[in-house]
């Protein structure tokens, strides 16, 4: 019986496109031929994909997931390139009636960022500045700090509190600034101020994307579109091959890369091993995060 896999993407270009293409070619080589991979045509009506409980919809990006989850409550649904908070909120607002649902989150497990700091910058105390809406992340950080026995300086801005003053306070009390993607604090709009100020304090920044490292962060751990494609394909295939009704648990990225800005490292007098060495040490630290 033919089973359909629909790939729905938030964007037609960039990393979303890369993920889609990668997944398509991987799926074609792995799945039996009775699976048909479709890309629904570009139109509003195509949202009402005629997919049932035996079919699979794969969404790439938050917007794609939001649209599909609102319009189809019975098919199997795998989301990728989506933050955990967004996946869980949208799922809660649109409960599924049938089919299995899972995801590969976009953000690295918090543990991995802190382990990166510990491996590459031993002895340095991480400082973290969070926006007012980051309550869940704050709890996670406190817990992992205890588990890893790695003291942190953590500050959460109150709703009217000034970013500049908050950042100054964190920088005065830490040896490395760990920036999590947070819309109020560490988004590309504030990157300039964050990088210049941290540099002025002589404090390196560990960020969450390759672009940030190019801009001046000391290093970052992130996953490439190819790595997301690989993991999402594996998740999808496991789901397809599981004849029972087991719901695969949503995952944090398993495959990741580390990038280092050697110019910044040199300027700050920080001696680092190569990105590849740090990557392999980080990998040997253990499985991908938790859920």
């Amino acid at each position: 019986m033919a089973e359909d896999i629909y790939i729905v993407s938030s964007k037609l270009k960039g990393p979303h496109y890369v993920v889609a293409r990668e997944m398509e070619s991987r799926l074609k080589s792995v799945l039996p031929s009775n699976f048909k991979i479709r890309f629904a045509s570009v139109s509003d009506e195509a949202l009402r994909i005629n997919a049932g409980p035996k079919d699979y919809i794969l969404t790439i990006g938050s917007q794609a997931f939001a649209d599909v989850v609102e319009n189809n409550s019975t098919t199997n649904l795998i989301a990728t390139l989506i933050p955990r908070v967004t996946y869980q909120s949208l799922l809660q607002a649109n409960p599924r009636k049938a089919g299995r649902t899972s995801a590969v989150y976009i953000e690295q497990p918090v543990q991995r960022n802190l382990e990166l700091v510990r491996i590459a910058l031993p002895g340095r105390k991480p400082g973290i500045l969070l926006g007012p809406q980051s309550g869940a992340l704050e709890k996670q950080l406190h817990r992992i700090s205890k588990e890893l026995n790695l003291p942190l300086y953590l500050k959460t801005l109150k709703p009217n509190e000034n970013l500049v003053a908050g950042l100054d306070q964190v920088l005065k009390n830490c040896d490395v600034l760990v920036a999590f993607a947070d819309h109020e604090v560490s988004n590309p709009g504030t990157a300039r101020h964050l990088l210049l100020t941290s540099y002025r304090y002589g404090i390196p920044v560990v960020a969450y994307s390759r672009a940030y490292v190019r801009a001046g962060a000391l290093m970052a751990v992130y996953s490439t579109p190819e790595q997301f494609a690989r993991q999402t394909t594996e998740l999808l295939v496991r789901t397809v091959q599981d004849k029972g009704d087991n719901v695969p648990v949503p995952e944090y990225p398993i495959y990741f890369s580390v990038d280092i800005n050697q110019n910044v490292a040199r300027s700050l007098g920080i001696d680092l091993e190569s990105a590849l060495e740090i990557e392999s040490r980080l990998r040997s630290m253990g499985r991908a995060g938790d859920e």
Partner: protein
Amino acid sequence: MGGAFLHSPTVRAGKTLDELPTEDVYFSDIPVVLSVTRLAQPKSDVPAAITVIDRSMIEASGIREIPELMRLVPGFQVGHDYGDLLAPQQTPVTYLGYSDQFSRKMQVLVDGRSVYDPMYGGVRWSELGLLLDDIDRIEVIRGPNAASYGSNAFLGVINIITRDPASATGTTAGVDLSTVGKRLATLRQFGGSENNRYRISASYLEDGPHVGRHDAIQSQTFAYRGVIKLKNEDSIDLHLGLSQGLRQLGNDDPSVVAADTYPWHDGYVNNNYQQIKWTRRPSRNSEYSLQLYHNYGQFDNTYQAYFSGLLSASNASTKTNRWDLEFQHTINPKTEWRWVWGLGARLDEAWGVDWYTSNDWQQNYLYRLFGNGEWRRGEKWTFNFGAMAEHSTVAGTTLSPRVAANYHVNDSDTIRAAVSRGYRNPSVFENFANTTVYLDNVNNPPGIPFTYFYSDGTVNAAKVNNYEVGYLHQARNNRFTLDSRLFLMQFRDTIAYYNDVTAPYTYGNGGEADIYGTEVQGKYRFNSRTSVTTSYAYARHQGWYVSDATTAPATTGSSDQTTPTHTFSLLLDHRFKNQWSAGVFYHYVSNMQWFNGTPLNNGYNIVNVRLGKQFKMGSKPASFEIIGQNLSGEYIDMLNEIRLQRTLYVGVRIPL
């Protein structure tokens, strides 16, 4: 691949996605901020001995006069001078002594603008219009650095960097009071939009007098700094400021009758500056800048005094202008190479009717071309080589080269060796002095002319050769740094004045000195709350200077006593948990004597203890501090007549 993707329309899926984070932040492009040209050389590659005084050191030290902050730098001495015929009260800052009240051998910059006085040299610290609260950090290079900073970077360079307008927001009012007469009110504001930030500061100050003196000052200042961000990380940095006020002058109660008096009277100062710097960053690897600035200084001083028993009226007023234009280009063609080169032109001019026996402005034009290359060879070696060529219309052409090699023994340790030469061009006064006072001109005009300062215009640039070997240790975890060096500086053709046929103070090249020794600075951070910083210099001086050229041979004196053998500082900084902080500062200078100064046979000690608290008013930060200054007792650092007292100092900052 067939078909196209399904592209989700931008119709929102309910209200929720608006408020939820998306994946965009992980894939957005971010323009390069810390480009290679913007990144500072790592400490281990720097070809010179550098000390950085940051805000937390300034705060903990309890020092609240800007020139006195230099006591935190190894080998630096600060003196307090009474005003005299030439200038109002000065606070000279020198390195390893060898100076009089005008400290002409030190280059001082504020945000890249030289604030060295063109007429006499030295810095009129109280006329800069600079507030201590506006300082972000001070970078001091110990030793000559003419290859990068030009003539007058002779003994060292002090670069004061003010707080970036983007570094804060809001308005703060401050009041400082001390038991020795200081009353300071300040108002500061940071503001602006994302691409156009500014910082403005205004202050009113009354201070002094020193015990038994008539040297109180009163001052109003205003300063503006704006940074306008253009596209692609290009920017314009604009600075404007003014400072004016009253200076009490004179040594003698007007009722005193004596052969030579300088009676009490009031003088006025009036200074302003403008500076604009345009920086263009066309790529990650290159940067251009063009800077223009202007400093204006005015000192109004007219008085009547007794010279050799005769009542004489003088107009000792002066005006100075400095104009400077500079272009600089930095490139990083490959990772191992960085080049900086540039050219500049400057006009220094001074006016003073009595001082130059002329109503004309005395002018010195200076043109310069400079370059510095940094070459990183492999993991172990960094080489720096550079030079500055300067042509001055009064002193001809000089070339100041520097070569340095840094060897990185391992991650933590670096050995450095450097050789350099510097020149100091004569100041406008040293070149054009022709000071005439008309004795008895009050009762018997026009009076008898008497020339007391004179220069025939043939004064050459003074020269220094510098040799140093340094060792730097930076612990991997950043808890401990140690920076030390061994040095020899050979000064030749030192510019000085001495008694000669033409005048009792005639300028010429009359002196030489060798100063050699060792310095060390260290910082240890016990944890994130406590740190200790220390600096020590040991120096020996062998030198002579001409005091009288009318004898044959010329009479000389030894200048050995102008350099103190020991200079030591210790700073302890501790932050308590509930926003209290404490600092203890100790400073010791062993016996020395400034030129024209009192012999300080036992040296002097300074102890400051500070307690501060930060708190919130509403959601904004506020603070107060209480400081005990000079707790070890009254001391003298230059002249018997200026005695610094034990002082209680209180400061409050509140947000508006």
